């Protein structure tokens, strides 16, 4: 993939749609909800989620948030599992190209709005950027408390003992906190919040992040937010502190030892390699290096 994407040749934005698909009343309603969400960091604000032209689970919540905060001069980046070129990312990017005519990019630094599923970009975010998460299950207490009335009350009264029951179970059965994604966090010392299914590797990036982080859950019709420079702590035990994933290998393509790696199966005989899940980060590092020197690809590919 080239680093900077040229607009897809669709002949510019579609006519017949309002800017960014949603009507202005709906966008106003969603913006009000976002303002409330930013004012109460980590609190799940209900909103009148609309039907979107894609199925629930494909990012309907994230799309509505993006549509509401998008302006004509914004630059949009969309990632799915860290990649800019997967179906979900491509579809959503093209959706906004066609309904809003905004510029799109794969460069994390250039984007003003980044809609994401499952990852936070490796490149540090800066002030002024908006990170929009697609959230399947916004309620971190759901696993233990199926009653919505009760879980709302637990949030209201900050009764979060049950969250540690979940971590306790992990340690009791696996000897360590085995939760690897959607790892519960406490935002601004108050609300326990689901960070959406990002790997816990990304949890520390949420802490004191200069960008605005908005979370949209389409099916559950909830929006919540983490304003810039907000404390975000991952829950843990004193004798089992929070830890992020580590790999013994480096990225087979760019050699990074600091990024989140995906294991890719390369053949039927057990061949596999580890590569960065953030494709833009990986491509940048490969481009910055002389093409000849790529010792990592052989090392990774020949692993048994």
């Amino acid at each position: 993939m080239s680093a900077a994407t040229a607009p897809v040749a669709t002949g510019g934005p579609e006519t017949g749609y309002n800017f960014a698909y949603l009507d202005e009343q709906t966008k106003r309603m969603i913006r009000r909800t976002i303002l409330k969400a930013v004012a109460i960091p980590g609190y799940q604000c209900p909103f009148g989620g609309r039907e979107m032209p894609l199925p629930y689970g494909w990012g309907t919540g994230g799309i509505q948030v993006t549509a509401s905060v998008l302006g004509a001069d914004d630059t949009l980046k969309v990632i799915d599992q860290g990649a800019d070129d997967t179906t979900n990312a491509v579809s959503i990017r093209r959706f906004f190209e066609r309904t809003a005519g905004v510029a799109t990019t794969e460069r994390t630094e250039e984007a003003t709005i980044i809609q994401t599923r499952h990852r936070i970009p490796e490149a540090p975010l800066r002030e002024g950027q908006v990170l929009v998460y697609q959230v399947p299950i916004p309620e971190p207490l759901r696993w233990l408390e199926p009653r919505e009335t009760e879980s709302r009350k637990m949030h209201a009264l900050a009764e979060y003992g049950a969250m540690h029951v979940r971590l306790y179970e992990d340690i009791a059965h696996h000897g360590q906190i085995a939760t690897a994604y959607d790892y519960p966090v406490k935002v601004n010392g108050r609300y326990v919040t689901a960070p959406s299914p990002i790997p816990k590797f990304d949890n520390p990036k949420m802490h004191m992040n200069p960008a605005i982080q908005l979370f949209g859950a389409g099916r559950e019709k909830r929006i919540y937010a983490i304003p810039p420079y907000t404390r975000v702590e991952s829950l843990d035990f004193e004798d089992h502190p929070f830890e992020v994933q580590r790999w013994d290998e480096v990225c087979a393509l760019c050699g990074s030892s600091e990024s989140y790696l995906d294991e890719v199966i390369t053949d039927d005989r057990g061949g596999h390699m580890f590569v960065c899940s953030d494709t833009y980060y990986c491509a940048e590092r490969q481009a910055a290096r002389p093409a000849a020197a790529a010792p990592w690809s052989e090392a990774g590919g020949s692993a048994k």
Partner: protein
Amino acid sequence: MSVDTQADAPLLEVQGLSKRFGAIQACRNISFDLWPGEVIGIVGESGSGKTTLLNCISARLAPDSGRVLYRTRHEGPADLNGMSEPARRMLMRTDWGFVHQDPREGLRMRVSAGANVGERLMALGARHYGNIRAEALDWLGMVEIDQTRVDDMPRTFSGGMLQRLQIARNLVTRPRLVFMDEPTGGLDVSVQARLLDLIRGLVADLGLSAVVVTHDLAVARMLSHRLMVMWRGSVVETGLTDQVLDDPHHPYTQLLVSSVLQP
């Protein structure tokens, strides 16, 4: 039976409590005091209002009229209905216990026995896994559950074990007052006997106060110091357990006592 007579004020005061469901008067003008270390039994037939009374005095249900005063550890007597909800819920999960007839209602069936016992500790801010687990193991031993079962799911437990697990889960925060709704219902007699022994031992060792609802007069005789007999929403007779059971005055109590089958 020894009642803690050093305490100079009742732990729980119920004053003129009434509760109505539509046309049905479930509880009618009920008053009683519960003293520290005392166990009160509430007996009566099905539908006599026992469970409604228990729910009202344990703040799970709001009474239509009357007051329930609980002597809190730090602030003295407080009206349960006038209390803020956070304070009430805090009370319910620290200073009180509630043992359901069906242990599945009081337990989290999808987490291990250890987590069930440890939950209240974590709710109170315990954040050291090792300590929580040690405490859970202690309590499993206390209620005679094999400590190797600490990581097993409650669904693999027998009915008697579930009930004992529920008791451990309630007692881990050292409550002062425990409400029990038919604690031995649905258990076979030998398991019942062991459970009753256990409850009696724990009540004596920990100096608990308890309100036990039961329709089984034998359970009432084993556990309670005092007895209240309910009939159609009213308390018709009250007194020391032996006195009520051996010399019943009210016609309904006489009927109740004479209805017990002798094997």
